[in-house]
Structure formats: C-alpha cells, structure tokens
C-alpha cells in the first residue's frame, strides 16, 4: 500500500445559498481545491463524490456523471463515482479515493462532497434526512431523526448523569469556534441560556442541540505521496483510514449509548497509524446533535465511556483546551450539508496541519482526526492525518 497525501482543499460558504445551484456549488469547491493543489486538472485519474440524497433534494440522480460533467471533465471521460452512506457519504468518498491511490490504482483523484438541501421545503428536508434511519422499524412508527439521538441523550443522562447544560455547552463551544470561521453557516457566539430555552425538538434536545439544514460543498485533491512534491509544498499525509458498520436501527445496538461503529473504525485507524487516542492533537467529530459529540469523544477513546459530559465541563475540548474538538464550528455551527460534511472535516484538518487555520489555529497541530458518522451510527469513517 502506498502513502497518500492531500495536496489541495476547497470549500464553499455553508448556509442557505439561494443563488447557487448544486452544480455551481460543487464546481466552486472543486475548482478551489484543484487550484490550491497546483495540478492542472488533466492529471486527475478519477473523481469520487459524496452525496446523500440528490434524488430527493434536487430530483437528480447519476451524480458521479453530473459532477464530472459540470466540472468540465466529461470530454476527458474521467471515471466518476457517487458514494452514499447517509451523513457519512463524504467520509466514505474520501476513503474510496484514498484506497484507490493506496492500492496503486490511481495516482491523483479529486474527492468532493455536496448537498443542496434548501431547494425543497423544510418538511421535505426533514423527511429526507430521516431516511438515514430504519424506515420500516423506526421511521414508520413515528421516530424522527432528532428523536433517535434524543433517545440516546436521554439514556446517557440516565446512565451517566450527563446534563442538558453539558449538552448545551457543546453547542456554545462550537458556535464560538464557528464565529471564527468565515465559511460557517452561523458565525455568532451563543449563550447557554439561549440553547436551553430554544424550542424543543425531541426531548431532551432543543432546536440548538441540532445541526441545521445547509447547502454547501467541499473538495480535496489527493495524490500518492511520492508524486505530491511535484505539485505543491503544502502536503498533508493521510496516515489512516478506518471504516465500520453497525445495525441500522438504534434499538438493535449492543449499547444505546455507544456507537460501536465509531469504536471499531477508530481502533482500525489507530492501529494503521500506529498511535493511540493520546497522540491526537485535535479532531473534527460528527456533532449532528450535541449528544453525538459527547458520544464521539468517548467512543474515539479520548475519555472513558460516560465521561463525555465531564470533559465538556472541564473545557478539555475548547479551542484552547488539551484536545480541541470541532475547531471549524462542527456540524452545529459550520452547518451540515450532508454529503459535504465528511470532506469538509478533512479540509479543516488540512488547514490546521498547514498552519492556515487563522483565528482557529491549534498550536503545534501535528496529528488530526476526522470522524464522520452515517445515521444514528450505522456507518462510521475515521481518518487520521499528519502534517509534514
């Protein structure tokens, strides 16, 4: 297996982007990444695109072909594949791109992630997101996607004494980080009371425990490490890629409060990189809901099971803490254009490792971890990156 590097990154603004279409957003992100990487474009061997539900959001399938076409590559007949894993679509696309280079099959690939969620009504967007859950045995009976995480949160509070305040603090922290990110959907700090008094969505989660509906795209260019120097000096190495699955329905899990897919995916990644959780300097984790970040830092091995709430209280995961989590603002504040999220996490990590994270820069950032989850934990991808 060859070493793989990220040589270019690109991001659109995340938010309600009314004047930009699906095609416009992905080509914007893609061209920024290609420009950043120093490649011409003709060197691209393949494209991989993460998109959860273009069919329901914009009535369009066959996304791999669409993106290659919109990006101006169809006349070069480049292989282009769309990958879907609900909210993990972006991370899965990164992994497919990574594997194709590591195996020697491709030298240079572009990986993009895109979701255009505001072209349908809020109700339709919610229904589409709920398709990440088990349609026959969860959604059919009235479970909404937030309520599934609500049930995790309720049980976590019951078993470990986690409080609503600790959940709210995750949102406060991530909005504080997001306020320093010019691409984030929400760039305003918020107070704890605001989160606690927000309209209820699914007990114990309120409106501000939930990530928003977002348009946005992200893209990265990956290259085999031995060829990367040809194009750029700003090289970041992907030192691990771990993937795991678990039952689709929350009620089938071994433990309601543990995402085994996160545990297993990160175990594989740590093993590949020959490190442990202690060596991670900072992480982008999948905070689709505040409780998800608490679970993530436990399941990734940063703290013991049940201590996620305590870690928030002890400010461990703040921007200036010992393990900054979601310096980008996370899904909560940066936004969650579903297919783009997994790729956008890589963009933030690369920026940090290059020392280009501006006001959000983590000091001495050397190793970063990206954690992307599908649904309520049926899919998980963990990537670990190292600055060169």
């Amino acid at each position: 297996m060859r070493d793989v590097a990220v040589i270019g990154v690109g991001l659109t603004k995340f938010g309600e982007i009314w004047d930009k279409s699906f095609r416009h957003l992905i080509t914007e992100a893609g061209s920024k990444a290609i420009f950043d990487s120093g490649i011409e474009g003709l060197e691209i061997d393949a494209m991989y695109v993460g998109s959860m539900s273009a069919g329901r959001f914009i009535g369009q399938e066959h996304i791999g072909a669409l993106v290659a076409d919109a990006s101006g590559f169809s006349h070069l007949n480049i292989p282009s594949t769309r990958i879907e894993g609900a909210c993990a679509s972006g991370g899965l696309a990164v992994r497919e791109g990574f594997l194709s280079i590591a195996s020697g099959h491709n030298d240079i690939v572009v990986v993009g992630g895109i979701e255009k969620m505001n072209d349908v009504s809020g109700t339709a967007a919610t229904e589409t997101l709920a398709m990440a859950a088990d349609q026959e045995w969860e959604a059919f009976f009235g479970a909404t996607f937030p309520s599934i995480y609500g049930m995790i949160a309720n049980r976590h509070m019951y078993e470990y004494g986690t409080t609503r305040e600790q959940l709210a603090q995750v949102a406060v922290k991530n909005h504080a980080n997001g306020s320093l990110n010019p691409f984030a959907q929400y760039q305003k700090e918020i107070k704890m009371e605001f989160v606690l008094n927000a309209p209820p969505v699914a007990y114990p989660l309120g409106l501000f425990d939930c990530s928003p509906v977002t348009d946005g795209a992200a893209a990265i260019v990956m290259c085999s490490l031995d060829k990367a120097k040809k194009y750029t000096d700003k090289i970041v190495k992907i030192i691990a890629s771990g993937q795991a699955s678990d039952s689709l329905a929350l009620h089938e899990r071994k433990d309601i409060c543990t995402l085994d897919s996160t545990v297993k995916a990160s175990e594989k990644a740590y093993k590949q990189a020959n490190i442990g959780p202690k060596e991670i300097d900072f992480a982008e984790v999948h905070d689709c809901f505040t409780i998800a970040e608490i679970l993530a830092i436990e399941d990734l091995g940063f703290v013991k099971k049940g201590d996620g709430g305590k870690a928030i209280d002890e400010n461990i995961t703040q921007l200036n803490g010992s393990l900054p989590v979601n310096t980008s603002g996370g899904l909560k504040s940066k936004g969650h254009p579903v297919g783009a999220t997994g790729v956008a996490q890589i963009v933030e990590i690369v920026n940090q490792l290059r020392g280009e994270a501006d006001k959000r820069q983590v000091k001495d950032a050397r190793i970063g971890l990206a954690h992307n989850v599908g649904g309520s934990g049926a899919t998980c991808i963990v990537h670990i990156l190292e600055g060169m």
Partner: protein
Amino acid sequence: MSSGGVARFWREIPQRYNLIGNKCTSCNKTFFPPKEACPFCRRKSIGKMKDLILKGYGEIITYSIIYSSTENFQNQVPYIIAIIKLDEGPNITAQIVDCEISDVKIGMRVEKSFRKIQEDGYTGALYYGYKFKPCDSLLSENEKCECDTK
C-alpha cells in the same frame, strides 16, 4: 387511482399486527423482526429458525418526546417515542400512548396496543400496527397480569 406502497406494508402485517418474530433453535436467541438466519450461529441456523409470537410485554429503556415531526404525524405532536425491551429479549421502537408525557419513565412496564400508525392521505390505505401503553393498571390487583410474571 393507484396507491403505491401497499405491498411494502402488507408484507410486514404479521410483524406489525402480531409481533411475530423468530427464534434460533440452535442458540435460543429471539429476533424481531424475524431473521433469515441467526447472525451468531450463521450456517448452523439454516432450517433451525422457528416463528415465535412475542407476547407484547416489555420495559422502556429510553424515550424521547417529539415536538416536531414529519407531516403524517403532525396531528399527534407532542408524542412519546421509545425503545422497549420486550420480555423475550429483542428491542423495539414504538410510540407510547395512554400515558401523560410527565409520567413516562425509563424502566416503566408497557404492553402492546393495536393502533392506526399512518394513513396514506385521504384516499390511500390505512396502516395499522403496534404502539405500547403502560401495563394495564385497570386489572384488579388480585389478578396476575402477564407483567407480574417478570
């Protein structure tokens, strides 16, 4: 006028009306909905899976209160959704009914109730299935209900 989706619902009627799961006679684990083969015994369980009617009693292991729902549940908001551990072992996701929102608790004993789950609009089919309600407090204290055997 053709109404799509009826076959998808009809297929699951034995599960949704009567909680028919199955059991691996090799390792005695019970599954709901039924599995083609036991995920643990794998090959050994082929031909050894037996249908089992679950009694419909269990305990709430977690719940959430939904204040914002999809369109077809809008007129029920706020409602309780829960994960229930059935006495036979499997977990199930279902609404809790006949229970005040302030009364629902983790650990509460519940039993199945036959309710209308969804409607396919005004002209489509009606989809019935299981919801769960607090274990019958109406039965006289002298009489054993299935719950008490737990």
